[in-house]
């Protein structure tokens, strides 16, 4: 089911949580609402679900206006940040809940419910936990049960609030991949909220970057990473070096291979992997030296120090593959020359 948001605004007192949000999500996408905490992403998700009312604007599901429909009529599956499993029910009863509260006409027979719940438990690979209570499960298990419970009512939209937020790092990694596969299998339009850009890049097919209640950029992970719309998105997604032209970086940037005759802005953002580090031909005049470096697995991160024009040193980060770093055979304190392959310009 496609989701359309028209001019959604929401205020909490004097604080504008959401300011005129317009968004179109086609059917079958797996969308990440990404932003720093307090940017309004969870509020937006709750408004789509009907758990919260917007002050202004419309929510359309599959083209029909559901703005005034309560959550129970919207056919959405919602997975809560802390799962909100029913503590007094077994895992089985939790998943069966959505089927058992249906009106007598729509309610499937008990045998059908059994069958369906076990199918869902198999889908989340936890069939052996059917008779346990939520308090007896680990975080990752609860998360998957919460998902199975939401899927039981065959929602046309799946909404997940910080689905991996409360899990430890290794479980989170597994679940991300698993969620992607699951979405592939079910192909139900899904939106999840996250503040973790890595998670958004890894899981989502589309990313919506939010800040201060506004959409900063919307696009595929590649679009967001490779061509950020503005200063905020560029800083928020991945690492970046920031050079400000007015601080006298222009001469140096020119030396590093970036033309500043026709500047496209006043701030240049350079991704660490877009900086090529070379042995200088004239070490005495090279303005940059290697201060330190960190081994990040396949990649080495170099911490470079550049003498500023006003005497202040600035730190620049560059990244390169392991082998390349070994070939360069650099030591701490060695002078290097830089070549910037690509920069994003902002005003």
């Amino acid at each position, binding site marked *: 089911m496609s989701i359309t948001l028209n001019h959604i605004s929401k205020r909490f007192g004097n604080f504008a949580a959401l300011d005129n949000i317009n968004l179109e999500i086609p059917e079958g996408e797996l969308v990440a609402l990404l932003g720093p905490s307090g940017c309004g992403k969870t509020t937006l998700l709750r408004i789509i679900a009907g758990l919260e009312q917007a002050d202004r604007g419309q929510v359309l599901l599959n083209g029909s206006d559901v703005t005034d429909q309560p959550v129970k009529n919207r056919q959405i599956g919602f997975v809560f940040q802390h799962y*909100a499993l*029913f*503590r007094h029910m077994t895992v089985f009863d939790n998943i069966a809940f959505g089927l058992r509260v249906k009106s007598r006409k729509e309610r499937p027979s008990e045998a059908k419910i059994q069958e369906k719940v076990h199918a869902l438990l198999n889908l989340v690979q936890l069939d052996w936990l059917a008779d346990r209570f939520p308090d007896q499960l680990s975080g990752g298990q609860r998360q998957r049960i919460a998902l199975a419970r939401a899927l039981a009512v065959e929602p046309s939209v799946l909404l997940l609030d910080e689905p991996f937020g409360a899990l430890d790092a290794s479980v989170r990694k597994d679940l991300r991949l698993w969620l992607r596969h699951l979405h592939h299998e079910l192909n139900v339009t899904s939106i999840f909220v996250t503040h973790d850009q890595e998670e958004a890049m890894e899981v989502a097919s589309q990313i919506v970057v939010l800040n201060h209640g506004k959409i900063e950029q919307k696009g595929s992970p590649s679009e967001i990473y490779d061509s950020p719309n503005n200063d905020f998105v560029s800083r928020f997604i991945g690492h970046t070096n920031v050079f400000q032209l007015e601080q006298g970086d222009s001469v140096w940037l020119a030396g590093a291979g970036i033309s500043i005759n026709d500047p496209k802005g006043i701030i240049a953002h350079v991704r660490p992997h877009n900086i090529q580090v070379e042995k200088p031909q004239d070490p005495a005049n090279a303005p940059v030296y290697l201060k330190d470096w960190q081994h990040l697995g396949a990649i080495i991160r170099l911490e470079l120090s550049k003498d500023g024009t006003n005497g202040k040193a600035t730190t620049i980060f560059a990244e390169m593959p392991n082998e390349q770093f070994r070939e360069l055979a650099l030591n701490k304190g060695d002078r290097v020359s830089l070549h910037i392959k690509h920069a994003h310009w902002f005003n």
Partner: protein
Amino acid sequence: MPQSHIMPGFRPTLGFTLFYLALIVLIPLSALVFKSMQLSLDQYWDILTNARVQASFRVSFVSALIAAGIAALFGFIIAWTLVRYPFPGKRLFDALIDLPFALPTAVAGIVLAAIYEPNGWIGRIVMDTLGVQIAYKPLGIVFALIFIGLPFVVRTVEPVLQEFDTAMEEAAASLGANRLQTFIRIILPNILPATLTGFALAFARGVGEYGSVIFIAGNMPYVSEIVPLLIITKLEQYDYAGATAIGLTMLIISFLLLLLVNALQWWVRRCSGQL
């Protein structure tokens, strides 16, 4: 080798607890048992099968049961209102709940009697409209016991409601449950054990309540005479053995009922996965 504990002071605190329990609870209660032993079983039986004594047991336990039931229902609603909704004067209202704890029970009894008697403020209205007399009837006892029992329920249910994760309600709604289904299937099972505790406390207090009841009960033998009053009456007639026999029986019945309520609580908790 003595077992070592992480928390120091196990022995003095256990010693103090046992000493306290013995001095304040066990010795007086065993004195009760001891005193009643002066009676032979036949005498004991005679006292208990006396029609007036049996009537008073019925009055005490039935009215305490009804009152605790009503207090549980109303207390739940009050706790719900206090936890869920903001309204002006909420703090004041919240403080008023505890008043029956603090008020001398005799004062409460006199006030209740004055209001609910046939010529009293509310008593007159009820008398005129429904033709029902509250004070000086068994109904009056129930009214007094509700007054006394209510704060027990409110104060046990309130913290549990505060801790209740409202996301569970949202989850139920998102799964298609209507409000009634959400309440019955999600909220109630989580709050029921606390409500039962409140009920048990209100009931236990109600069975033993004396001060607030005697002013409103009318104290008619066979009709509205409560067990504690009968005990006092026996004492005033220097019938110490009779008084202790009734006292002991009351102790045993109360103990058994509390055990029953606890078992019920345990069963509810187990059914709802809280054990």
